[in-house]
């Protein structure tokens, strides 16, 4: 159990909290890159999937992309991009591209399923009330799909944090670099310390996204309203 003391000592060493290799800087790198990738993936995938779901087309593509994506090892895709010619290669762009590629499938699939599987009766009722297509989308389909869309964004966030960790195997910074540096120096305390940092970040992201999901879901109010209407 001596390794626990080593890990504690590693965390207490002020040198590990300073400079470009220090925990705060690595943490900021990790969060910054992950947030950028998640933002780009949302901006690309949500409008496309909402539109496909609204017109009920491309379901095989939207659902299939998740199954296909799972078969591609993130490590392999990262290495392929780093060995690819300009503008890829050993650059932030390569890492960011890989993160976005792996964030898109869960968002695309969940958003498509959420919008396309809204109860047709609700859409019919909205049309009967004289709503136009865009109005139906904004006032019926999107509110009813929010919970599933957020599910997809949460899955993507977890995926992005994990892929950003693996990026350290290839080139990237982030908290994964503490782990790979530790392996390089055969310093087990550094490896485990870095892994604990990643663990804390990943669980916080999952927890934070779950909270956000509950807060932005407009369905609770809608559900109470529809229950009153049904009664």
């Amino acid at each position, binding site marked *: 159990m001596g*390794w626990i003391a080593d890990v504690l000592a590693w965390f207490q060493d002020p040198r590990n909290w300073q400079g470009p290799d220090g925990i705060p800087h690595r943490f900021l790198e990790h969060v910054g890159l992950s947030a950028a990738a998640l933002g780009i993936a949302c901006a690309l995938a949500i409008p496309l999937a909402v539109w496909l779901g609204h017109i009920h087309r491309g379901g095989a593509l939207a659902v299939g992309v998740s*199954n296909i994506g*799972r*078969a*591609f*090892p*993130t*490590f*392999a*895709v990262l*290495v*392929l991009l*780093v*060995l690819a010619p300009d503008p890829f290669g050993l650059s932030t762009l390569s890492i960011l591209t890989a993160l976005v590629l792996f964030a898109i499938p869960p968002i695309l699939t969940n958003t498509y399923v959420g919008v396309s599987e809204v109860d047709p009766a609700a859409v019919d009722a909205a049309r009967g009330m004289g709503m136009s297509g865009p109005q139906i989308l904004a006032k019926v389909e999107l509110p009813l799909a929010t919970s599933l869309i957020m599910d997809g964004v949460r899955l993507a966030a*977890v995926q992005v*944090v*994990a*892929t950003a*960790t*693996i990026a*350290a*195997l*290839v080139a990237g910074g982030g908290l*994964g670099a503490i*782990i*790979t540096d*530790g*392996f390089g120096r055969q310093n*087990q305390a550094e*490896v*485990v310390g*870095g*892994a*604990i940092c*990643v*663990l804390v970040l*990943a*669980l916080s*992201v*999952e927890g934070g996204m779950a909270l956000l999901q509950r807060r932005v879901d407009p369905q609770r109010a809608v559900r109470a309203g529809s229950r009153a209407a049904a009664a």
Partner: protein
Amino acid sequence: MIGGLGSALIGSHPPTVADDCLLRNAWVCPEYVRTRADELTAATVEHLRITVISVVLGAALALPLALLARRVRRLQVTILGLSTAIYTIPSLALFSLLLPFTGLSDKTVIIGLVLYSLTILVRAALTGLDGVPEEVRDAGRGMGYSANGLLWRVELPLALPVLIGGLRVATVSTVALVTVGTIVGSGGLGDLIATGLQSNFKAQVLTASVLCVVIALVLDLLLVLTQRVFMPWRRGKAAA
């Protein structure tokens, strides 16, 4: 690269087509596949070995856990919460956390991957068993099945499509995750990708990557076929 050296020594002759792709460090290179067939086969077999052991152990642990969770409802919340937590941990961090216990060995990778497949399979087992209609259970009890008989003859067969669906997700994800095991030197094809990165050997990286995807797709196809053979009544319907 060996071929490249050979054709460089010949000098005045133009390099043969077969050697050329190694010399040019091309992405696609049949000559690489031919000359390194042994290395590729060994890595593929190792990749398959780690995948199969991890998924089979995960399934063997998942079913009893799911049955336990069903009997003790309070445990279900704990088990589902833990499985979400494990699934959230990035693979590189999970392998690193196991390092003090199992060191630089394939055990580290296998235990990590068992944990991941376990989380997927426990969920699938619970979803599948919960999906059995209560009327069907009643009918089974009315026919005189004991709790055990009901489980094996009625509930599990009806849950099988969801179970196999979970098995497909677990298998395909595991094939991809094995590559990260290269951090402790047991990454199967991931080891070839890592050495290919270090020596900027494009053909090796692309070939090993394509093999990973092919293994995942072939194992997925095998599971779909298994489902068709064992569940002829489900033919034509996809697993949930």
